[in-house]
Structures are given as structure tokens and as C-alpha cells.
């Protein structure tokens, strides 16, 4: 079984979800602090 699709999926998911939660939190902060 080629391991790279699994490794790539794990990194993309974690980094993507981290960035998304970060972006949503930043947007909420900017919206409310305006």
C-alpha cells in the first residue's frame, strides 16, 4: 500500500483545519472588536 496518500491526507487535514479555525476566530474577533 502506497503510504504517501495517507501521509498527505493527514497533513492537509490537520493544517487545513487549524488554519480554518484560526481564520474563523480571527474574523469573529475583527467583527466584534470593530
Amino acid at each position, binding site marked *: *500500500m502506497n*503510504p*504517501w496518500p*495517507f*501521509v498527505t*491526507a*493527514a*497533513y492537509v*487535514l*490537520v*493544517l487545513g*483545519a*487549524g488554519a480554518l*479555525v*484560526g481564520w474563523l*476566530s*480571527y474574523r*469573529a*474577533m475583527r*467583527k*466584534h*472588536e470593530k
Partner: protein
Amino acid sequence: MPTLHALANPARFLRIARPLTPWLWWLGVALVAFGSWAGLTQTPPDYLQGETVRILYVHVPSAWLGMGGWSAIAIASIAFLVWRHPLAEVAARAVAVPGATFAALCLVTGAIWGRPTWGTWWQWDGRLTSMLLLFFVYLGFIALSNADRDRGGDGRVPAIYGIAGTVLLPIIRYSVVWWNTLHQGPSIGLTSSTIDRSLLWPLPIMLLGFSCLFGAIVLMRMRAILAAAKAEARLRRRALA
């Protein structure tokens, strides 16, 4: 303790949180970028697991933050119930969503690692099941604290739930010792590790980077909650005037 009490003042907290947020965020981004590069290209493949071992560098920090997030909720809940810290409740609410996200990421990356290594995406193993329970407990806390706020509650019920949920943390920690099923036993300790150094060195970098990002996200969410409460109070004053 005096420092903790000083920080409980929202104005003083904001004076520290405002400059700290971008620093934590960008430091976290730099450390995670370096750690990912190192974990993907600079370490040798494991002699048994091969390249899939690289999932460790994102799986372990996710588990660390999933459990660390709940510890933070428990500490904030105690601080709220005992000392009535006005910021403690805000902190617990701010941690819940990122904590639940990382608990879910721990489960998903574990499944992705499990498929090529164990030959299965999921197994009702002690560690996997207790981590799944923690994720559900997070969802319960998010729902409960939202409902409590909507109904004008004083935050005590979510705080009690926050302390009660802590019972899962030692179960997750010792699940691999108590039940000898699929998940491997504890492999990384403070003083020794069963993982070779050549494989292990990017892990502390990733742990620190993820912790910085988590801290920045929590600060941003706390600032949003405080600003929303301030705007709400202003509207209420205007309506009464």
C-alpha cells in the same frame, strides 16, 4: 495566584492579549512550517511502519491539544466556581471549539494512520473509544454553555460539567495500560522514549508550534466574546436610557 487575579481584570487582560495574539500566531505558523518540513523530509522512515510514521508529527500534537484543551476547561471552571473570575468562564468557552477540533483531528489522523498500519480505520479499542468519548463530551459542553447563555444562566452548570468531564483524562492516559488492545502503550515520557531520537526530534517543535497556534486561537476567541459582551451591554444601556 496574585498574577492570576490581576489577569482576571478584562481591561488588563486585553492590554496583554492584544500584542500577544499575533506573536503567538506567527511563532506557531513558523514552528509548524519548520516541523512539518522536518517531519516530512528530514527524518528516516521507520523500519516497520515505513513512511506512515510521519503522521505521528500531526497526530500526537492533536491528541495533546485535545486533552490539554479539556484540562484548560477544567481549570477555568474551578477558577470560575471558586474565585468567580469573570474571565474564567470566557476562557472555558473560548477553548471548547478549538479543543473539540483537535480531538476530532486526533481521531481522524489516527484512523488514517491505522488503515495502512493496522489494516483498519477503526477499532473499539480503549484509547480510541475514550478519545471519541472526549470529543462527544466537548460537543456537550459547547451545547450546554450556548444554551446556558441563551437562557441567561450564570455559567455554573457548564462549569460543573467542565469539572465532571475531567474524569475522562486519566482514563485516556491509562487506557493503553489497563486494556491491552490495539493502540500501543505509552512510548514518549518526560525523561525517556521508546522512539529513536532520529525520528523524535521534530515532535517537540510541532508540539510547541501547535500550542502557540492554539493559544493564539483561544486569545482571539476570548477577545471576540469580550467585545460581543461589551457591545451587548452598550445596547442594553441604550435601550434603558
